[in-house]
């Protein structure tokens, strides 16, 4: 497994398609004194940090420039926006990312901490926390690199699990080629890393913890997600296709060699969001996506269930159970997962204490209060699927010996009729890693 990862990394770095990653990987660490010769402008903490930083961006940063942040704590009452110049880097010049803290605890305006809408953007070696809304958002651009940054919230929720934090920590959306490496995201009331409607997402070497969703890859084409440590979230991974968005498909996700463990955090998402339906204790939730290969991951101590593959029908049901309203129908977006392949993952100590909606499934498993199967499928077929085999919900070793189809369409919540036969599921698919 390790071999595969390093080969992959090399390929990714060598690939011209991901030039930004290659560049940032090759650059030397900035010196700690804040006087790097690579800095076009260096800002330092002062009395009016948000305005100073924004003025530096507006007046001094042009295409190809680097804005350096000297070590220290910046207190920002407004968001930071980069909307003009492209090929810009934001770089902290401390010894570690913790040395440059952008603290948005007093933020009064803007719905995110940092918003970038230009191409070829890189942000590295700094820490963004307590933004009023989302953390670091890159919207609609080509080539965005998040490298060695930390983004999160000190107090994500109150005692009643109402959210106090923003929705997304690291937030590329509508981005072509998003690269998220060696970073940490924590405390998001939706997803720590949320890549939505992107083309090409590479994420590795990250830690995502204390969020409702550790890593969410939504309505995206092409994702290669590996070597991440995903723990203490409500649900580790959400790999999904949602209705009523511009981009109508979610496919070609390769999720491998991650450590997905102890995702048992109570759900503190905003009510009536998809995140609010994420079952506590879930390792992987695959929702309505297609061409998803999940392999080589270490999945352990997730008390609900190791992996679930579901249609959007389930989300509507869960939304209704939570007192919410189902999403409006979107006939142009598929509701059903297809071509999903779980194989070669390691599972330990999952499904030991399922709660809430997962209890329906646990009750079905011969009256037990545990879910012993690794991979569960709701068995709901789309109109293009003549039978179970046509859906291509594939399981290899060891998953084929621990698979459950709980027939949500016909069982009327009596999941004792679940089946474990994998005759229709011993297929394979292959998702190429990005960079090939």
């Amino acid at each position, binding site marked *: 497994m390790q071999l595969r990862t390093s080969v992959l990394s090399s390929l990714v770095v060598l690939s011209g398609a991901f030039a930004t990653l290659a560049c940032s990987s090759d650059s030397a660490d900035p010196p700690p004194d804040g006087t790097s010769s690579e800095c076009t402008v260096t800002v330092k903490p002062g009395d009016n940090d948000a305005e100073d930083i924004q003025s530096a961006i507006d007046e001094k940063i042009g295409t190809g420039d680097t804005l350096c942040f000297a070590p220290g704590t910046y207190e920002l009452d407004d968001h930071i*926006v980069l909307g003009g110049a492209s090929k810009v880097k934001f770089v902290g010049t401390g010894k570690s990312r913790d040395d440059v803290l952008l603290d948005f605890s007093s933020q009064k305006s803007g*719905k995110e901490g940092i918003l970038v*809408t230009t191409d070829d953007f890189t942000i590295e070696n700094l820490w963004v926390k307590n933004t009023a809304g*989302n953390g670091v958002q890159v919207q609609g651009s080509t080539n965005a690199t998040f490298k060695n940054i930390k983004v999160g919230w000190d107090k994500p929720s109150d005692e009643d699990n109402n959210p106090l934090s923003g929705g997304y920590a690291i937030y590329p*959306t*509508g981005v072509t080629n998003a690269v998220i490496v060696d970073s940490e995201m924590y405390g998001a009331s939706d997803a720590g890393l949320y890549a*939505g*409607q992107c083309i090409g997402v590479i994420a590795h070497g990250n830690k995502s913890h204390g969020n409702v969703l550790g890593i969410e890859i939504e309505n995206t084409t092409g994702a290669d997600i590996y070597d991440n440590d995903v723990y203490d979230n409500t649900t580790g991974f959400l790999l999904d296709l949602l209705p009523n968005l*511009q981009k109508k498909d979610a496919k070609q996700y390769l999720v491998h060699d991650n450590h997905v463990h102890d995702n048992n955090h109570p759900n503190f998402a905003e009510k009536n969001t998809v995140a609010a339906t994420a079952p506590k204790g879930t390792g992987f939730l695959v929702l309505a996506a297609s061409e998803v290969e999940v392999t080589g991951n270490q999945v352990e101590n997730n008390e609900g269930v190791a992996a679930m593959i579901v249609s959007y029908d389930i989300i509507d049901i869960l939304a209704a159970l939570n007192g919410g309203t189902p999403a409006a129908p979107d006939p142009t977006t598929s509701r059903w997962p297809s071509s999903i392949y779980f194989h070669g993952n390691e599972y330990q100590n999952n499904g030991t204490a399922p709660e809430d909606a997962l209890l329906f499934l646990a009750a079905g498993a011969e009256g037990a209060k545990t879910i012993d199967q690794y991979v569960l499928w709701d068995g709901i077929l789309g109109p293009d699927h003549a039978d179970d085999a046509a859906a291509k919900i594939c399981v290899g070793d060891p998953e084929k010996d621990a698979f459950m189809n709980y027939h949500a369409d016909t069982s009327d919540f009596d999941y004792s009729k679940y089946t474990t036969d994998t005759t229709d599921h011993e297929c394979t698919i292959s998702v190429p890693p990005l960079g090939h």
Partner: protein
Amino acid sequence: MYHLRSASRALTAIVLLGCGSVDGNGGVTPPQAELLPAEWPDAPFPAAPQPRSELVELGRMLFYDPVGSNDRQTACATCHSEIWGMSDGLERSIGLGAGLFTGPGRAGTNVLRRNAPTLWNTAFSEVLLWDGRAASLEEQVRLPFEAQDELARPFDEVVAEVAAIPAYTTLFAAAFPGEEPAVTGANYATAVAAFERTLVSRRGRYDAYVAGDEHALDAQMKRGLFVFAEAGCVNCHAPPLFASDRFANRGVPGVTGVTDRGRAEVTGDEADSGAFKVPTLRNLQESGPYFHTGAVTSLAEAVRHEVHQSELVDGAPPQTDEDIDALVAFVKKALFDRRDNPTRPGRLPSGLPIPIDGIGVRR
């Protein structure tokens, strides 16, 4: 991205302007240069070449030509007509299959989800459409072709057909000298976008006033300018464009049976649900009905809705009826300039009939 800070600076300027200072003769002193609103932004022309007359002329033909539609009767100009404020006078636009007639009398089954946004001053915007899904005019040009209820024809197919029309090959060759082939999808989009960038409204009474002509606004409009700042309108409708590339949820009711999450469809963020792009107020009086649903017919009613929202949501001070009337007068008259209104071609290179506009009845 039109940054909030720019809007704040403009606010300061406009408040100072609105208050003015009364000189010994009882007249309002023309504003000092440093108090003027932010500079008129340079139009971004992301795709070289700069607009040349041949390029704009080609773009104008393509804009009015229904050659790109599946029914050979629908063009850009069907929903963006110079007679209806570069919009279409409909609550929600009607796409393919509704004939050559455009304007409020147009009827058909392909009713779109949203009101057609005006094309005035799109040259200065970096996010386009109500949900901001296009970042440039060049990008936006392609979208209606792909939409099954708008033009419903693959863009490549349209380009191939245009390439086979001799009158167009001549126009493309003139607009893109030395390029072989000249008729490409990118050049098609470049030409239409170049034409759209000529739709600039910047010489209204307000502009004359800030340039120093104190008589350009009458007393009511001046009052309206002050109210515009005081009521907080300026925070989003930032001068000089009286727009911003921001998104706001202004409590406009949705249309029954239509799912529209607005900006959230692009960002995937629930917090953006119901937020739509802040439109320009330039030439507003011609581009009704208003808001993304087109549910509000009169400009005065639209202004009242916004003032009410600002009171309710943003904590803006309440306004008297008199002040609201002044605000309406300001928006309606001071921001009106259609000197650059485009000219409709007499005949089209494709030989197809031009959409027939102005059914002649304003509701």
